[in-house]
């Protein structure tokens, strides 16, 4: 009875979100699986099943493999760089000032910086895209290239050189993500009991030692979550790439990613079945990544 009352209470709260989630998230997913087995073009009134043909074709499609390569680069770099930068800033903001009175303090002006770091997160992705289009503009009117030209250097085609384009976009993704993770990690650091730091500081531990021996191990769960989030972001990149590079993986397929290909294949080329197959593959990639990350980094919990 006790149990029923408790879970009944929880269930009452969950009913509406679960219903919305089922209608707007789960059911389209199931439908995508269904459509991926057909040659539906978005206009036909009935579905014609063609088995796994779409998947066979997908694995022979060089655009698909190019997209995977790009996702691979994003997946390696985006979480790593973002987490490292965010951890560094969060440490400085919360603990970098050393011990002062009771507990640890951030560096001078940390409240101000916290707001500044969060700014990019407030901007819509499309706005960020347009902003960086101006930053990366390839002639002397660009923000970076204007400075380069003033210094007597040649302007650089940040978004049009095949070797640079993905990295330029990656830099924007990192720039935009860092603020959120600074806040996330700050919250995690605030939850670490102050006496740990005090005790370690009394024993003569420096800031670096404090960071690696206390902050980092106690933040592990938070970092893990951040890592999964960022990995998922690495499988996306839709809006930013569409605004900054375009929908054809310009230049030379350097920015081809699955979400853009799915969108284009479904709505420009009217191959909804094939696009759904890509969506299904993307789904499994994302799930595999998340499960692998959580599994491989699992370990005993530390009770604070």
């Amino acid at each position, binding site marked *: 009875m006790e149990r029923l009352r408790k879970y009944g209470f929880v269930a009452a709260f969950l009913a509406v979100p679960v219903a919305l989630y089922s209608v707007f998230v789960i059911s389209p997913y199931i439908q995508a699986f*269904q459509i991926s087995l057909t040659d*539906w073009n*978005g*206009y036909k009134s009935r579905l014609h099943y063609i088995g796994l043909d779409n998947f066979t074709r997908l694995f022979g499609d060089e655009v698909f493999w190019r997209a995977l390569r790009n996702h691979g680069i994003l997946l390696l770099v985006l979480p790593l760089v973002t987490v490292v930068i965010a951890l560094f800033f969060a440490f400085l903001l919360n603990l970098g000032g050393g011990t002062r009175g009771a507990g640890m303090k951030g560096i001078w002006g940390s409240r101000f910086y916290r707001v500044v770091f969060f700014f990019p997160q407030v901007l819509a992705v499309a706005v960020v895209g347009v902003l960086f289009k101006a930053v990366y503009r390839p002639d002397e009117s660009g923000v970076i290239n204007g400075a380069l030209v003033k210094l007597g250097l040649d302007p650089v085609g940040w978004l049009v050189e095949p070797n640079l384009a993905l990295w330029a976009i990656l830099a924007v993704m990192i720039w935009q993500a860092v603020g959120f993770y600074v806040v996330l990690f700050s919250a995690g650091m605030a939850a670490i009991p102050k006496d740990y730091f005090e005790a370690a500081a009394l024993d003569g531990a420096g800031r670096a030692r404090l960071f690696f021996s206390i902050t980092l191990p106690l933040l592990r769960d*938070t970092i893990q979550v951040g890592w999964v989030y960022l990995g998922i972001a690495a499988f996306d990149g839709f809006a930013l790439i569409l605004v900054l590079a375009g929908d054809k993986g310009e230049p030379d397929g350097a920015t081809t990613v699955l979400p853009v290909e799915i969108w284009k294949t479904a709505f420009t080329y009217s191959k909804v079945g094939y696009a759904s197959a890509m969506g299904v593959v993307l789904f499994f990639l994302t799930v595999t990544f998340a499960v692998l990350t959580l599994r491989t980094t699992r370990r005993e919990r530390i009770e604070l």
Partner: protein
Amino acid sequence: MTHPGEITRRELLRRIGLTAFVAGPGAGLLSACATSGAGDEPTSTPTGSIAVSADPKNPFGVDAKKPLEVTIFSGGYGDAYAKDLHEKMYEKRFPGATVKHNATQQIGTQLRPRFVSGDVPDVVNNSGPEALDLAAMAGEGQLADLTALFDAPSLDDPSKKVRDTVTPAVLDNAKIDGKDLVLNYTVSHRALWYNAKLFADKGWALPKTWAEFKALGDTAKKEGILLFAYPGQKGPYYQLWNALYTAAKIGGNQVLIDIDNLVDNAWNAEPVKQSVTAWVEIQTLYSDKAYFGLDHTQTQVKQLQNKLLFYPVGSWIENEMAKDKPKDFEYAIAPIPDVTAADKMPYGAIQVGVGENFFVSAKGKNPQGGLEYLRIMLSKEGAKGFTEKTLNLTVVNGAAEGLDLTPGLKSAAKAQDAAGQNIITDARFEGWYKELFDYGTQQINVVMAGRITPEKFCQNMQKKADAIKKDSSVVKQTRSN
């Protein structure tokens, strides 16, 4: 310290993390929206043709009481020409009929679900980046046959059929799967566009041969002006067109017809290679790689600042840039110079094409009204009003008579007179095989930037064309002229 009912903050974050990957990149959902009718076999095969009435005043037998729904793409032309002109003309012809006007920039997103569910607008101006796939629509019998429209008497002169009052390209371009299903309403003139005032001031003449073209490039370079530039972002297809039209000038329209018909090795033909090679040379010697990263508007503004001489585009450019155009800038069209001494088409050949698609829904509530609406658009009054409101010419013969044309349109009309029979045809694979066209717009940047050779460009395009030819899911079209 944890007991089962309590959710700690970290636990919560972790759960959010877990749900987040399910909700993850929304792309998986994108394609799954409208299959409510899945499994239903269509009850009858739609024919798409509409019975013709005997009344010459009302050739389609329009029911004056039935409402008409019109969807307009509100892009470069706006939607005032429909709302304030064509729809008013329809309501005047059929007092009591109401026209429901709907303007959008997302034709496909808005209408695709409606076509799947069966509640469709009667007339659609199918245009813009999210336009509907007309070949797929035709396959589903959604498009009404326009033969009745073309055979109907013209509103201006009942002794003439509509088909005799429009430019012949309308009839060629109406066909999908051999049936007349699409009305192209505007006429545009494509070649190289330049500032006539600047040329007059400098005393420069239009180059007629490739040698003269390059000599002018050297002269302009001394003044810090680029001979040529195209936008590498958003508008690289302008250069794809340009290269294709140059190939047609060298080798005749058959080059483009073969490409459209997916003929074996059509892309490897000598004129295509010559054209691409010539343009790559111009790009390397007389342009600037910064333009690979600029979009069409940025490039067009640079031309208005006289930073580049020639820009490959169509006659809509004048109206498009009207707001930014300084007083001392006057748009004019320049034919593509002779590439070889033996070009099939002489100097002066330009591309004159039709565009801006309209169709009538076969399964709409008022297809007769839809045909009548198109007949109104094709009347002189309807066409003249369109030109007045949008500064673009229509396919209706003589509809612009008596209008005070802009300098750009005047220059286009003059160039068309001078070209005579040497009109470069349009490349229809742009609409037929969008995947091939998109690939081309991407590859043209690669070859123009010098990262692949013109030969490799042709081979890549051929490979893609062969893949399209083999792809059974793509409906094939053919053309004979």
